[in-house]
């Protein structure tokens, strides 16, 4: 390989699963967005640090009352099918996502749009029904991917044949095997992307991914479990990069069921768990958090000192609450997420050490969603919430029940108020309050935000992750 032209060599990438669909509007699956990120562009996008920067829109203005958003599109952008990008495409895209027939799971984020106008080919004007701070974040998220109007009109099957303006075109998709992305030569960032072809190999078995990376059959493995790190460290050909994810790992508590309707018991749980240990063992390490916000988020506030690891304190609280071995507590674990299962086993052990009788029950993902999450039929459960670009995405709905059945009017109204408030400082002040209430009332045991370790062959540079969206960005990637 050494003598050949590096550009013609494809980049072999390991993807852990097959995306269900590649339609960016019809799903909430992370895998879809991870692939679509290279095929589609959004009007604006978060950069590596989470700051929103121009993408298809070169610039944008917001009216004083925060209701009118005007975006100025980049010139000369072309879709993969040759259509030039115009404001009509943008309008059609956002109309599609709020259309009931699309059945988008994130429709509500765009429901605030009252109307979309296209004064000229390169200008789009959104008028909102009410002030809505998270709007820019919504537009920058995967759901905001811009689709060509001509194909929307003909009912094109975006689920299996995505067509966007992104740096790569999808040229082949063998489901459950590989997705081949080929360079879009007309991409609007001149000189990018660098690599001609990216093969996303769908490899569910992590040890195969690791071996592939070690033997050079794979160039990038984006999710390396902590247990495999020492192995990769030994190899001189591999660099390991560690990023903090925007995940909020929790053990959720059903606050309406006894004994957890007693806040003391919930606090006891928080004392009983050695969070750093769980992060290090079950997850790939991470930062402990003390409230319901991911560690890297601009709105994060530190409450970790509130409930340090203190089993004695936990025992004492439990004694006060009168909870002992005779209370059987059921912890439901989603079977398809091994890290959560492992964490669950650790929680079980830690809780039994403070005298709680916790029984583990595994369930499959569908059952988890419908029974545990939507049906709130659980005592304890373990899950990770993906952080959102905007805190409203993370917090909306809490205080009014949600799956943890936590009711707190003050928190609920503050969250609603914050969504309509503009300006970082003002919002931060409100959210600090909300996070404070949540930290104290503990509808969850907050564990932390985990790291993600990626393994990259030394001859590959410029691979970027967008942590807030948990997506990959290949635009700068190249072979040395």
């Amino acid at each position, binding site marked *: 390989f050494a003598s050949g032209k590096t550009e013609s060599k494809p980049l072999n990438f390991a993807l852990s699963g097959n995306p269900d669909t590649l339609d960016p509007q019809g799903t909430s699956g992370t895998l879809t967005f991870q692939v679509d990120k290279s095929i589609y562009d959004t009007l604006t996008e978060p950069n590596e640090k989470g700051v929103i920067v121009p993408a298809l829109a070169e610039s944008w203005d917001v009216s004083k009352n925060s209701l009118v958003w005007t975006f100025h599109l980049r010139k000369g952008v072309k879709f993969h099918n040759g259509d030039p990008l115009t404001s009509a495409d943008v309008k059609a895209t956002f109309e599609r996502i709020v259309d009931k027939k699309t059945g988008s799971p994130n429709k509500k984020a765009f429901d605030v749009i009252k109307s979309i106008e296209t004064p000229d080919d390169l200008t789009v004007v959104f008028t909102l029904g009410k002030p809505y701070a998270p709007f820019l974040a919504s537009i920058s998220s995967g759901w905001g991917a811009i689709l060509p109007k001509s194909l929307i009109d003909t009912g094109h099957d975006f689920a299996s044949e995505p067509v966007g303006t992104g740096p790569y075109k999808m040229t082949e998709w*063998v489901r459950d095997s590989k997705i081949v992305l080929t360079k879009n030569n007309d991409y609007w960032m001149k000189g990018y992307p660098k690599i001609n072809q990216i093969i996303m190999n769908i490899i569910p078995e992590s040890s195969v991914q690791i071996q592939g990376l070690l033997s050079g059959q794979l160039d990038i493995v984006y999710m390396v479990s902590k247990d495999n790190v020492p192995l990769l460290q030994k190899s001189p050909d591999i660099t390991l990069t560690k990023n903090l994810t925007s995940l909020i790992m929790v053990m959720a508590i059903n606050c309406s069921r006894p004994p957890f309707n007693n806040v003391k018991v919930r606090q006891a749980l928080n004392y009983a768990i050695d969070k750093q240990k769980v992060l290090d063992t079950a997850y790939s390490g991470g930062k402990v958090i003390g409230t319901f916000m991911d560690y890297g988020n601009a709105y994060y506030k530190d409450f970790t000192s509130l409930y340090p690891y203190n089993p004695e304190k936990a025992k004492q609280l439990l004694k006060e609450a009168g909870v002992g071995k005779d209370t059987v507590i059921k912890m439901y674990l989603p079977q398809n997420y091994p890290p959560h299962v492992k964490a669950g086993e650790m929680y079980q052990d830690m809780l039994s050490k403070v005298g709680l009788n916790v029984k583990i029950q595994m369930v499959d993902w569908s*059952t988890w969603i419908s029974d545990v*999450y939507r049906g709130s039929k659980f005592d304890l459960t373990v899950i990770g919430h993906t952080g959102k670009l905007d805190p409203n995405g993370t917090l909306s709905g809490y205080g009014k029940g949600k799956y943890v059945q936590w009711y707190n009017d003050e928190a609920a109204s503050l969250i609603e108020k914050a969504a309509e408030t503009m300006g970082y400082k003002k919002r931060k002040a409100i959210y600090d309050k909300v996070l404070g209430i949540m930290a104290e009332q503990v509808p969850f045991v907050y564990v932390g935000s985990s790291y993600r370790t990626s393994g990259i062959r030394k001859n590959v540079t410029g691979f970027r992750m967008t942590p807030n969206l948990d997506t990959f960005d290949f635009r700068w990637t190249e072979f040395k």
Partner: protein
Amino acid sequence: MKLFLFILKRFFRLVLTILIISTIIFFVIRVIPGDPALVVAGIDASNAEIQAIRVKLGTDVPVAVQYVRWMKKLVRFDFGTSLISNQPVMTLIKQRFPLTFSLALLGIFLGILIAIPLGVLSAVHRWSLWDYFGMVYSQLGMAIPSFWLGIILLLLFSVKFPIFPLFGSGSIKNLFLPAIALGFARAAVILRLTRASMVDELSKEYIITARAKGLTEKMIHYKHALKNALIPVVTVTGIQFGYMLGGAIIIEQVFSLPGLGRLFLFAIYQRDFPLIQGGVVFIAVIFSFTNFLVDMFYSFLNPKIRIS
């Protein structure tokens, strides 16, 4: 005419099987917890959005209506469209079948290739070195989890000695290791049955006749005894082959193969109703067909058994 009637009868039975199975499966998957709309929606969607997704998927109407819709399609050999990937179920199955079929065929072939001679040798030389070898092999075959064997095979033949690809699909080379991993475990089972059955047959008097004719031991074992011994072996092999045609989930996972097993597995996890239904009906057809072949084979193996 008789042949036609016979085929017609078989076909009728197949249709009946499909009808029964599709009805059972239809209601079962709607009674168990889990809702495809929730899977599509993820955990952040609101109730209104979920309802919209249900409308889109067609799961908002009463179950009876859904049932009639599905049956109407089924009689036209239309299995519907996957709720999750929006692809026709038939297309999805068709894409996966060649790989799964070749894998199953190769796997069962390897399994038989190992098991039958070893089983015969074990039976002939009971409690001898061959037999111990056979025993140890079959214990390993049954106790070694296939993921373990798979990964070891990959480490050996794709990493240490890179003869076979580590992942990917499309060429026959990709099938070799998984077929070995599959065949290894199957062979263990077939071997045990072959041995037991052969021991039984070898104790019968017609073997003495065969010896009296001066036939070689090989002929006696393979031509005379084995044919008689094969019935339980064929039964179990047939069932295993059927299972393999429905996909081998763990093997597909370890070897990153896009087979039917993973397709159906995710369909179940995601409650992709049409795909589950289609998958189950598909497997039912496969089982009806392999068991039909097995039944035919019975009457070849033992002429006293007649298919009515």
